[in-house]
């Protein structure tokens, strides 16, 4: 192989990219990873909490060794309207739920892990085009015009990936498929956060602070991140909300939130798109789309990083199998890739929960959503809403099958609805000293 020829070329060092690079290197492949930013995690990637229900998968155990900001054990939801504030406190069970991280630190660590495994990494290098020959994607072109060839190209360049766009797989999206998110990071100091948030993430629902999403506050070590936004449909922006920042402004000024942030200062602002739909076709001859580039994200559940890790790893495995048989056709790539995805119970169950909840959210007013969540949140929030909705619809339509479905799903979800001490034990063994 000459200098610019690789087994696998990977674009994007967010979540999926380093995971794919590390796996591919471990499988003995010659691999190069490109990232446009100077420090991985500093472009608009966002995302802060890693879900323990996914990290217990052996493929992801190593991620517990990364730099963690805060261990999350509880969840609080506030419903605030003119008349009253209702607070729901959800602790699915005693134990560790999520790991709160800072992407600039965490992604940078992850890239180092990929390097240690043998991957070559080029930072500050933007990929601007793909090389296609004889119906196959054969490589990529950098912003300086340099060409790099790979038997398989893995697209891990996120929501607007230019790789997937050039390959004709990523379309333009808006309406109820795309969410525009604004975030701010508020510095409060570790002690204040311990006092006001502790190990708890918070969700808020109140008129004027969101458009069919779920505003949140995720505590890190000495900062907290707030996020809100909405589906990019015709009702997102209007005279009252000329701009997405207006939702954030109202959010910051909710009395309950204001009090929690008292004395703090905004140290960063962010703006992100998040896709909420499957990308129809995720492989092409010589190319695999992973993570958010492949539509593997569930914005409504704040879930996308772990899906990106899984799909990055699976793409590396698919590339290895293709290389072994010297067959880089989309059929060959899909064979391994789609099988591994369909066998991942975490991804399948969370997709189901998200689909049911999205349907509910899109068809109801914010007020109705508040009411709906009040009925179900005590039993476990989004998970029980998925069960509850099926169940109630079944009762309404006298459809025993839907009720049975709901029941079966509840059984299937059991391991995820409660937090197994297994995650906490694993994490304690693995975490940095």
């Amino acid at each position, binding site marked *: 192989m000459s200098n610019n020829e690789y087994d696998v070329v990977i674009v994007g060092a967010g979540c999926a990219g380093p995971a794919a690079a590390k796996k591919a290197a471990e499988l003995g492949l010659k691999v190069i990873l490109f990232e*446009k*930013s*100077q*420090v991985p*995690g*500093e*472009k*608009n*990637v*966002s*995302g*802060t909490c890693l879900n323990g229900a996914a990290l217990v998968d052996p493929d992801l155990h190593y991620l517990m060794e990364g730099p963690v900001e805060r261990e999350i054990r509880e969840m609080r939801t506030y419903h605030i309207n003119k008349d009253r504030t209702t607070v729901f406190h959800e602790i699915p069970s005693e134990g560790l739920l999520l790991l709160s*991280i*800072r*992407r*600039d630190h*965490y*992604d940078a660590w992850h890239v180092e892990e990929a390097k240690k495994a043998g991957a070559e990494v080029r*930072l*500050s*290098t*933007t990929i*601007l085009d793909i090389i296609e020959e004889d119906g196959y994607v054969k490589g990529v072109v*950098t*912003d*300086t015009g340099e060409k790099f060839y790979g038997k398989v190209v893995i697209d891990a360049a996120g*929501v*607007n990936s*230019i790789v997937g766009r050039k390959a004709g797989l990523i379309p*333009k*999206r*808006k309406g109820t498929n*795309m969410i*525009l998110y*604004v975030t*701010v*990071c*508020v510095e409060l100091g570790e002690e204040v956060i311990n006092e006001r948030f502790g190990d708890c993430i918070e969700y808020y629902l109140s008129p004027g602070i969101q458009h069919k999403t779920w505003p949140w506050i995720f505590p*890190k070590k000495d*900062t907290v*991140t707030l996020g809100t936004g909405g589906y*990019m449909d015709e009702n997102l*922006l209007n005279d009252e909300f000329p*701009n*997405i*920042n207006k939702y*954030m*402004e109202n959010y*910051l*000024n909710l009395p309950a939130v*204001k009090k929690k942030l*008292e004395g703090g200062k*905004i*140290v*960063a*602002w*962010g*703006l*992100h*798109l998040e896709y909420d739909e499957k990308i129809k076709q995720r492989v092409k001859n010589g190319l695999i789309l992973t993570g958010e580039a492949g539509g593997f994200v569930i914005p409504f559940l704040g879930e996308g990083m772990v899906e990106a890790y899984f799909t990055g790893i699976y793409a590396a495995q698919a590339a290895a199998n293709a290389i072994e048989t010297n067959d880089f056709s989309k059929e060959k790539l899909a064979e391994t890739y789609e099988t591994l995805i369909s066998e991942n119970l975490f991804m399948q169950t969370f997709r189901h929960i998200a689909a049911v909840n999205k349907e509910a959210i899109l068809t109801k007013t914010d007020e109705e959503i508040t009411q709906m969540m009040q009925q179900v949140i005590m039993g476990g929030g989004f998970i029980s809403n998925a069960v509850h909705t099926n169940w109630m619809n079944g009762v309404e339509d006298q459809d025993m099958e839907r009720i049975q479905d709901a029941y079966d799903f509840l059984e299937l979800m059991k391991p995820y609805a409660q937090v197994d001490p297994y995650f906490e034990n694993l994490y304690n063994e693995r975490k940095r000293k």
Partner: protein
Amino acid sequence: MKFEIKVEYYPGDTGEFIKVIEENCTGCGDCAKFCTRDVWQPDGAIYRPVNLKDCVECGACWNVCEFDAVIFNEPKGGTGVRFEYG
């Protein structure tokens, strides 16, 4: 708390990574409406990405333009927006 936009940029020339295709642009203004950073400004009958140095590379303008009038590329390696804290 007073809302504030605090955003950092890497030094260096990003290049003209967002452009308008003049003959496709109908002047509908959707790009400007969805751009949180006021990059897109009216210029006669069309819109142009004028304040590109304020762009945060979110891609909203490209996604919402129904007339394929937005060229949305990437800034040169190591330049453009930088979100500390990720």
